[in-house]
């Protein structure tokens, strides 16, 4: 992926709102063509970071460059090089599909020939063939979101920022949306995306986990999972996960527990994996226990682990 210098560089970036530090001393770089994911709870500072990188918000201190342009010195220059799409799909609902495309093409100053070409591209990628005259507000959420992405990249920007682009969209549409992101990346477009969804984060080449405005962890999926080296995770099937968690917390081998779907994940200290002992404890407490097996850490395990360590 790395084709040399980073297209986005962030150095000690900080943004305060009064006394509140929304983004605190953030540093990282993003390579060209990379899909870079921002993971974090609400209010962790993901959106604030993106807004600073888009030239919508000035940093309080620190620097950042996007496509070689300093966001503080030339925010308008940044805007010419990027596409941006936020969680609210920013289209005009009273306008038709064609009118929305024409509007953004006009704002970005596309030539007539270019417009024809990009119009076709957007219609195709959004799956809107023959629906150019439909009012945007009548489109289903997933389609509208693909159209919004299309409008945001009409001018073929080399860098795209997506702020929770798949909020409130059905899983099938999400999957389709991520295929579009993969395609963009394959064409050399750098994509910086924030998300809540762990499965989406798995699509990213690298992930930055943010907590309280700070960078809590950064790396590829497998690098992040390496945080569990030396510890193991077991998945326990039980009829009563809440009760099971309470019992397991008292076991000396168990570092911590979390609910994972209908099962319980327990993190065991230092490769201590006496599964029989765990099973015995659970049955002694009157719980029915199904399978107990070691599992690979998921990104969710990583996320929760990072959050826990940050909180303590």
């Amino acid at each position: 992926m790395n084709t040399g210098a980073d297209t986005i560089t962030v150095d000690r970036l900080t943004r305060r709102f009064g006394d509140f530090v929304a983004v605190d001393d953030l540093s990282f770089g993003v390579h060209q063509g990379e899909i870079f994911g921002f993971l974090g709870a609400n209010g962790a500072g993901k959106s604030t970071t993106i807004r600073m990188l888009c030239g919508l918000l000035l940093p309080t201190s620190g620097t950042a460059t996007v496509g070689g342009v300093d966001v503080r010195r030339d925010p308008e220059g940044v805007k010419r090089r990027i596409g941006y799409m936020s969680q609210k799909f920013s289209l005009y609902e009273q306008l038709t599909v064609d009118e929305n495309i024409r509007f953004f093409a006009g704002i970005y100053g596309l030539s007539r020939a270019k417009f024809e070409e990009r119009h076709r591209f957007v219609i195709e990628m959004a799956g809107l063939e023959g629906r150019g005259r439909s009012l945007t507000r009548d489109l289903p959420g997933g389609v509208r979101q693909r159209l919004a992405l299309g409008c945001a990249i009409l001018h073929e920007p080399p860098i795209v920022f997506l702020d929770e682009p798949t909020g409130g969209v059905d899983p099938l549409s999400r999957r389709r949306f991520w295929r579009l992101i993969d395609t963009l990346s394959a064409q050399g477009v750098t994509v910086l995306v924030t998300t809540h969804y762990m499965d989406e984060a798995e699509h990213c080449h690298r992930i930055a986990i943010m907590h309280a405005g700070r960078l809590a962890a950064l790396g590829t999926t497998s690098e992040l999972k390496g945080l569990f080296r030396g510890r193991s995770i077991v998945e326990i099937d039980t009829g009563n996960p809440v009760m099971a968690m309470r019992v397991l917390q008292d076991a000396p081998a168990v570092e911590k527990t979390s609910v994972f779907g209908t099962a319980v994940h327990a993190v065991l200290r230092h490769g201590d994996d006496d599964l029989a002992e765990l099973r015995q404890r659970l049955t002694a407490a009157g719980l029915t226990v199904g399978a107990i097996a070691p599992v690979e850490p998921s990104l969710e395990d990583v996320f929760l682990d990072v959050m826990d360590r940050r909180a303590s």
Partner: protein
Amino acid sequence: MRMRAAVRRTLVLMWKELLELKRDPRLLNIVILAPVLQLLMLGYAATTDVRNVPMVVADADRSVASRQLIDRFNDSPYFTVTHVVTTVDQVDPDLTKGTAWMALSIPAGYGNHLGTGVPQTVQVIADGSDSNSATIALGNATALLAGYTKQLVAARSPAAAAAGFDARIRIWFNPRLESRDFMVPGVLALLLVVVTAIMSSMAIVREREIGTLEQLNVTPIGRGELIVGKLVPYAVLGLVDVVLVIAVALLWFQVPLRGSLALLFVLTLVYLLTALGLGLFVSTVSDTQQQAMMTAMFFFLMPMIYLSGFVFPIANMPRVIQWLTYLIPLRYYLVIVRGIFLKGVGLEALWPQAAALAVWGTAILGLAVARSTKRVR
């Protein structure tokens, strides 16, 4: 090249804005129905004429002469005698309940003494709770009585009547003293500012609410382009209103237009810019449409109505408040619109007002551009 790109972006924005307005179902109501209906209603309601004042008469005399006096009142357009009682204390209930605003008391012996040289006194009692109307009605009553007395004297001795001096009062510009001719242009001015300022106050804040403003903010569109692109479509709608409202004033209320229609249009356009600039400014400082509406209404439009001279004459206000009125664009436009309609004056008389409006409009538009959220915070 840069300029051409900016012009193109502005035009695209105007086109988009007009499309959205065209598809807004509220548009017809706000732009066409509301102003016309309001002008029709206010044109009739906003009148300071005091006519057909309900009157009760206490006639203790019951003579031919007293009945002549009562008829005199009843025949006047200003009074309507609702009923006649015999003693003066019988008028109380009518004045208290408000079924009569005014009472006339004619003493016993009025008819017999008339023409004998003994001065006769009739009493007029007015309900002063609405002091303005009461003053006007009393004035009308006094004038009526004076005229009647003069006529009686003249009938008896023409020489005596001719000896007095004869003051002839001539009223310029609105000779019939029709308050409607004065009020309708005022209502027109008021409606234009209310409709256009409220419409344009929604313009930018609506995009902020639905999130498209942020989308626009990451595009190369400049804030001047944003303001101009928003302003022009609303100015077009405002012009539609100008034509409609002037047409109603001329054709329905038959308010005389003594001055130049072209000048009226040009100066109205300048006035429109101040209203639109005001609305856009409110739009840039508000976070929600509701907030924009409230700000426009309470901080700008209400003071404008009270301080412009539309309701209360500026000359009667305390000095400090009078200074404040110089900040109110409606003040200048009222002079312009009434001047052109009623006095038929031209730019030679109205240029100070026109200049004030132009300065005001430029300033508020400049503020709106400066405050526009295209800026990076």
